């Protein structure tokens, strides 16, 4: 019983962090699916989402607002708005002017964008980490007779539910809406989509915006979960989410979701049963293994050579 509770605790922790990774990973995978390139500034967009949410929460509390759901929703909307505009701007500045050039060029401009955003936040917000108020406290505790107590916090439940809502909304959007349909067409054959009269620039902007908005949601959630943010907040999370996207098969949205969860669970299991220091070793080791045996990732389809 004791062991089972301990195991469940690791599983809960892993799924919590994994679902947030999945939210960020979707941004990588969608952009890759459409233009075949990695958005290296995505981690920074997530970090800016967390900062914006923090600023909004502080501002709203200072204004005397006390109703928690309202504060959270307004903060979430602000974060999504700011991050989405950043996502849009990154595409306009770092990708569109160099589209169609050698693949290394947009890669470098995106890394430049990432360095710029990181340092901008350094200057504007200072380099020390800032505490994130714990707005959602408490939770359920389960305990057998032994000493170990399993806890499922309200914060974790919030993360699950929010992620679930976002994923469902995204899946419906992609499968049902006209813009989603156009997104799928553009990702399969951008030239043909353009010939059929789809404004491909608009669709590319839309994918950057959607990915950034989801990253902002993750920024707010993980900011609250960890309790602080700093300008390097996006770096490691971005790396992990990128790993999750590759693990699940880059370009595949269900793959990003699955990859995020697997990564999160494997990390927390490593921390729980081995040692916290090994968790990055295990997650990147897992990535290497999967790439060795299934180079397209878990749900990725092999690239068909176009004639």
């Amino acid at each position, binding site marked *: 019983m004791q062991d089972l509770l301990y195991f469940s605790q690791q599983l809960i922790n892993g799924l919590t962090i994994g679902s947030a990774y999945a939210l960020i990973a979707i941004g990588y995978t969608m952009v890759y699916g459409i233009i075949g390139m990695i958005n290296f500034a995505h981690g920074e967009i997530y970090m800016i989402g967390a900062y914006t949410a923090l600023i909004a929460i502080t501002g709203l509390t200072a204004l005397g607002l006390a109703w928690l759901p309202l504060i959270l929703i307004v903060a979430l909307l602000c974060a999504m708005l700011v991050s989405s505009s950043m996502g849009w701007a990154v595409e306009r500045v770092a990708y569109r002017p160099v589209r169609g050039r050698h693949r290394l060029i947009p890669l470098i401009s995106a890394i430049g964008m990432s360095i710029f955003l990181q340092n901008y936040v350094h200057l504007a917000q200072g380099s020390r980490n800032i505490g994130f108020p714990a707005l959602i406290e408490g939770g359920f505790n389960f305990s057998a007779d032994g000493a170990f107590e399993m806890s499922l916090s309200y914060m974790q439940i919030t993360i699950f539910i929010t992620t679930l809502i976002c994923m469902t909304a995204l899946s419906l959007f992609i499968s049902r*809406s*006209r*813009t989603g*349909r*156009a997104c*799928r*067409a553009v990702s*399969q*054959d951008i*030239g*043909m*989509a*353009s*010939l*059929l*009269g*789809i*404004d491909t620039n608009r669709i590319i902007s839309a994918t950057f915006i959607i990915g950034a908005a989801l990253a902002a949601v993750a920024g707010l959630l993980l900011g609250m979960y960890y309790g602080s943010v700093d300008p390097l907040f996006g770096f490691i999370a971005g790396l992990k989410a990128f790993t999750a996207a590759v693990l699940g098969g880059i370009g595949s949205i269900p793959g990003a979701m699955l990859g995020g969860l697997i990564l999160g669970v494997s990390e927390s299991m490593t921390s729980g049963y081995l040692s916290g220091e090994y968790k990055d070793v295990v997650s990147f080791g897992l990535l290497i293994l999967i790439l060795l045996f299934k180079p397209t990732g878990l749900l990725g389809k092999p690239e068909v050579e176009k*004639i």
Partner: protein
Amino acid sequence: MLEVQNLSMRFGGLLAVDGVSLDVQEREIVSIIGPNGAGKTTVFNCLSGFYKPTGGKVIFEGKEIQGIPDYKISRLGMVRTFQHVRLFTQMTVVENLLVAQHRHLNTNMIAGLLGTPNYKEREQKALDRAAYWLERVGLLDLANRDAGNLAYGQQRRLEIARCMVTEPKLLMLDEPAAGLNPAETKELNQLIVSLKEDYNVSVVLIEHDMSLVMDISDRINVINQGKPLASGTPEEIRHNDDVIKAYLGEA
């Protein structure tokens, strides 16, 4: 409606198309034939905006269109197919037809979320048009299959249906009968004629299948090594000495 004057296309030292002229009237099927490597597809690529021709004029409905991007040309009502099928293979058959009507649809996301009457009405119209064309090319039963799972001949017909839902004025078909068996070619033949007769579409056709070309073309242009060789009705072309030489070699 389409007039091509003295078109030429140079790739470095190679003059792939040299002084080709042709014209297409309303409700007319015009074929471009020639031996392999004659430059037929290059002509198509110049007309449809894939290449920017290095010389000559392309006039569509009184407007010079040479060198403007492909998607703008297709919006003017000139749509094309490719030698190899280019469907969205991971989308269903009906989705392929809906996505082709994208720009006629209201894509306002907020209207979509709210499901406003206007949004629904247009989606319904798009669906109706898709269903009509699926029926027309005999694929209605397969509407919800993935396009990539269709047989080759069915994919060819779906491609034509996908062009037709955009309501084009001029359809450019690049070897539509390639890889089809004789029965399928016959069906295609009837379909192309009916596009002209029933839907007032003009067709420019590149084809190797001579029986198809001779059957349905109103006029034929022959090109050889990038240069115009002959043009006229199927009957004239059949008896043209230059054409026979080009195809069979000097005797």
